[in-house]
């Protein structure tokens, strides 16, 4: 039996554990049908031309989350942002860990999706938002929808702002030799609200784990969201991140994606504009080695006038690593005075590393400013000599140039502690300890 069949068959068992009468179950059933007919994407699909899932879906995975594994705070503490965090949603092998988490219902809801599904007071919100921004034709999202059960639920009412960033952390313990996880996050921001969110997936042992996650974000008028994705998992882990953002007028949403680890990572990041005067920011920093593969597949759908979007993706590829950037911008006829900017810069440090970069602009309006550009190059030799001649050895000089190259993605990280963390991760990744904190 191949893995697709297993997913279809196992759904019966999944249904025994969920409320079949809840309205979202209709979505599950429809999505399963859709996945059954679409199947996993293949390289003949234009959006998957440079990324093959074959290596990960040929294996068998444990599907249903197992009872909470025994992990202690000390095992995972280093992945938390601060010693004392305000809000944290921690999942272990797909199961929510109340012990490691910090939720709230005080003035806002920062809790789990299963609770929001089961409690009647959330019914209205769930009905209004669930699965409304997820396109039907993305089969991995359909697969996630069909198995929707658990994930983060964040509801920030009008004019509210959590005092600290919210962390969504997924740990995988290796209790199962191979596991397929499908978290589902729903984030609803009412007018004038603000939030910062950090998401991370982390394996605690070198077992096979594939995460196929879906995050829906609804940003109402004049709300502000800064979302940070830290992808620094072990080489045995793969991640398919599907993030869909619906923005109303005057809202401002930024997503930073730091892809440093993992075996195969695919980021499907989609922005949909529903009002005017919107700002969308997509920034990515990818530093890969070994045989790592990261695919950034973005879409910004400009549908209304006077909106802007900024995409800035940087990649540094060593060994036999492979990067893909496919950035799509659609500007509808109505979206006059759009300002859409896209940039993808890459450094290949070896002959075997590879980058496939493809900007895609579809513009139907006539009064717009759209720019795109991509570069592929190597670290500047003369710059290396300049640093060497000042006493900075080869490895450190390469690290400094890499850091300089990546810096404009780093400098827009607004959480100081996170900024420091990421710089440390980069220094660690580049194997250097410099005379200043990167």
């Amino acid at each position, binding site marked *: 039996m191949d893995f697709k069949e297993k997913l279809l068959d196992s759904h019966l068992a999944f249904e025994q554990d969920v409320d079949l009468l809840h309205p979202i179950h209709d979505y599950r059933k429809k999505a399963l049908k859709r996945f059954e007919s679409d199947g996993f994407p293949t390289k003949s699909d234009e959006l998957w031309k440079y990324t093959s899932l074959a290596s990960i879906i040929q294996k068998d995975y444990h599907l249903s989350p197992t009872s909470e594994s025994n992990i202690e705070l000390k095992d995972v503490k280093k992945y938390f942002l601060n010693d004392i965090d305000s809000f944290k949603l921690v999942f272990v092998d797909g199961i929510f860990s109340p012990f490691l988490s910090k939720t709230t219902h005080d003035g806002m809801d920062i809790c789990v999706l299963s609770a929001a599904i089961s409690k009647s007071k959330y019914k209205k919100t769930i009905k209004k938002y669930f699965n409304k921004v997820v396109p039907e034709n993305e089969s991995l999202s359909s697969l996630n929808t069909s198995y929707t059960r658990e994930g983060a639920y964040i509801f920030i009412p009008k004019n509210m702002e959590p005092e600290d960033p919210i962390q969504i952390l997924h740990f995988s313990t290796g209790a199962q030799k191979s596991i397929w996880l499908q978290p589902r996050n729903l984030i609803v921001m009412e007018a004038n609200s603000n939030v910062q969110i950090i998401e991370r997936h982390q394996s605690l042992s070198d077992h096979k784990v594939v995460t196929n996650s879906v995050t829906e974000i609804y940003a109402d008028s004049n709300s502000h969201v800064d979302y940070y994705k830290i992808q620094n998992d072990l080489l045995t882990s793969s991640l398919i991140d599907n993030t869909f953002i619906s923005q109303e007028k005057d809202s401002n949403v930024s997503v930073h994606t730091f892809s440093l680890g993992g075996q195969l990572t695919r980021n499907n990041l989609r922005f949909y504009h529903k009002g005017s005067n919107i700002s969308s920011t997509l920034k990515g920093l990818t530093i890969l080695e070994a045989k790592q593969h990261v695919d950034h597949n973005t879409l910004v759908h400009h549908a209304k006038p006077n909106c802007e979007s900024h995409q800035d993706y940087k990649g540094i590829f060593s060994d036999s690593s492979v990067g893909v950037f496919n950035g799509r911008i659609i500007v509808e006829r109505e979206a006059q005075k759009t300002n859409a900017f896209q940039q993808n810069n890459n450094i290949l440090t070896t002959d075997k590393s590879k980058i496939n970069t493809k900007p895609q602009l579809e513009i139907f309006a006539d009064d717009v400013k759209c720019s795109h550009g991509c570069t592929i190059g190597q670290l500047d030799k*003369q710059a290396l000599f300049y640093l*060497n001649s*000042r006493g900075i050895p080869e490895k450190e*000089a390469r690290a400094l140039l890499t850091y300089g190259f990546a810096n404009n993605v780093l400098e827009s990280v607004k959480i100081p502690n996170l900024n420091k963390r990421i710089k440390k991760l980069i220094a660690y990744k580049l194997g250097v300890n410099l*005379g200043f904190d990167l």
Partner: protein
Amino acid sequence: MLEINNLHCKIEGRSILKGVNLKVKKGEIHAIMGPNGSGKSTLANVISGHEDYEVTKGNLYYKTNEINELSASERAHDGIFMSFQYPVEIPGLTVTNFIKAAINESRKARGLDEMSSREMLKKIREKSSLLDIDTKFLSRSLNEGFSGGEKKRNEIFQMAMLEPELAVLDETDSGLDIDALKIVANGVMKFSNDDNAVVVITHYQRLLDYIVPDFVHVILDGKVIKSGDKSLAKKIEDKGYDWLKKEKK
């Protein structure tokens, strides 16, 4: 401090230096002059260890050690500094972070602890005021968008911070107006003392009015063809290089 014997060097298969001899002692300032393409910058690059320059013959001694096999960073740790004719722009790396990395890498190589932030800051303040550098400039990306004068001042600032024993200044005067030239030259003269040596590479005598050399050497076609005191520079200013070419023949 520096002794160069019969140095021959190639870049991309092309012979540039064809038997250079030069001796520089502690406390001395040497000027190297010569027309375009004579090999002046090549000499600076070879001394500081640029990998593209292949030494095919001859020796390079620094503090009595043969340094031919040392990397550029190892030479820097040992006290060699080159001020670049065209300082490289490095976006995203601030002047301050660059200086910190450079100083601490050298200290690490010498088995010293990192310089404390306080000490570093004090030194930065002291040296930047010496060169009339606005401290705002230190948080800018290295050389990015700097004017010609700012780039050169930044080079001399780095020299002042790193306190090398041998400083090779490659056309530090090019692109400078007279005021900037005076500031830069003043920085060099303040740096120069009995324990270090300076080699100034220049086209023009003008710089040597402010950085007064003990010796002047003329390079022509990959060889030092004439050495003398500062009056040699004056003579070149008046008569050009042609008389030397004829004399050589």
